[in-house]
């Protein structure tokens, strides 16, 4: 059962490839246009959900008031999200990252109370070993950071002389996690120095 095909003359080959790539290009452009808005919405929703998870109830829009800053040793810009309730600062969320994960980057969103203690932490991005390093998303691991003030809570793994309990069998992932929290804390401190009183005029 052979299908009659066009002869492989130069013109036929060039024409066939040109036609196919042209149609493919146009349809991809069209689909890209269609999905542009839903894609942006999905990304924003993910960000807002993570913010709601680490911050107390807020009435402003932290995403719109975010401050982006470059930080020494951080490849991407770090983000600083203030959460206000009627012009009172009720919390701040800061992204922090570390390149020292078992499989590359670990990125976190750390929520701070106005007094500097950690409220909650959300994992934004990680490629750790499933079943070992991925337990950093688990409640059992995260709860040791809640309500701790990094000024007095040594953000290093116990093995390195700090106060963080490592995940069983995943010290490297824990180290990266702790480093990312530390970075977020330093960013938080550097930003809060600029605004000594904790209220801000709208």
């Amino acid at each position, binding site marked *: *059962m*052979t*299908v*009659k*095909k*066009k*002869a*492989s*003359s130069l013109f*036929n*080959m060039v024409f*066939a*490839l040109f036609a*196919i*790539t042209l149609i*493919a290009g146009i*349809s*991809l452009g069209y*689909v*890209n246009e269609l*999905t542009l808005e*839903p*894609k942006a919405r*999905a*990304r924003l*929703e*993910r960000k807002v959900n993570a913010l709601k998870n680490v911050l107390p109830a807020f009435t402003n829009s932290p995403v719109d008031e975010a401050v982006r800053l470059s930080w020494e040793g951080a490849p991407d810009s770090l983000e600083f999200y203030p959460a206000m309730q009627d012009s009172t600062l009720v919390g701040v969320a800061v992204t922090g990252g570390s390149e020292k994960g078992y499989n590359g980057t670990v990125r976190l969103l750390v929520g701070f109370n106005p007094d500097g203690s950690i409220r909650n932490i959300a994992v934004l991005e990680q490629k750790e*070993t*499933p*079943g*070992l390093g991925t337990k950093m998303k*688990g409640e*059992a691991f995260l709860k040791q950071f809640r309500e701790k003030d990094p000024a007095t809570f040594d953000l290093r793994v116990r093995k390195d002389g700090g106060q963080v309990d490592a995940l069983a069998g995943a010290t490297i992932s824990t180290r990266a996690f702790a480093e990312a929290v530390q970075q977020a804390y330093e960013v938080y401190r550097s930003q809060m120095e600029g605004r000594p009183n904790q209220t801000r005029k709208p």
Partner: protein
Amino acid sequence: MKQTPGPKENFLKGIIKENPVFVMLLGMCPTLGVTSSAYNGLGMGVATLFVLLMSNVVVSLIKTQIPAKVRIPAFIVVIASFVTIVEMVLEAFIPFLYEQLGIFIPLIVVNCLILGRAEAFASKNNLPASVIDALGMGIGFTLALTVLGATREVLGNGSLFGFRFVPEDANTFILFILPPGAFIALSYLAIAFNRLTRKVA
């Protein structure tokens, strides 16, 4: 030339006799890479099924217009376009699955199952036969990936489709979630599959 098989055999061969994963061992990269859970295996299988179906349809429709010497690049452009569409749609509407599958979505392009069916089947057969072939092969691939993902998830994480049936801190065979476990699970499943199908036949 042997007689052409009917639509039913054509459909079933992709699931049993020529199952892409357990018999032909095609598309090993996504098979081993993403099947750390049943949900991931199912998602990858359905994404591949869609691309395979669309590429078989298009290749079957344009087969007489493609000069033989440029057929491979032509097929690859068709496949790559549909993969990119799948990637954009997943990112927009199922972001959770998009994050889980990550790098493996673009890699559907080089899944030899898809190019293999375009070259070996769709470029030689009419549209209905190509659709049935794609459905059979795609469903066979999806079933295999889901079973493999379920096996690894149950053994390695103590859960199935995300429902845990062991406590959070129980000791499970983490090996099965790690890459070596993919090879081990796949080989034993392939043995069991071939034993069973041979017995039936």
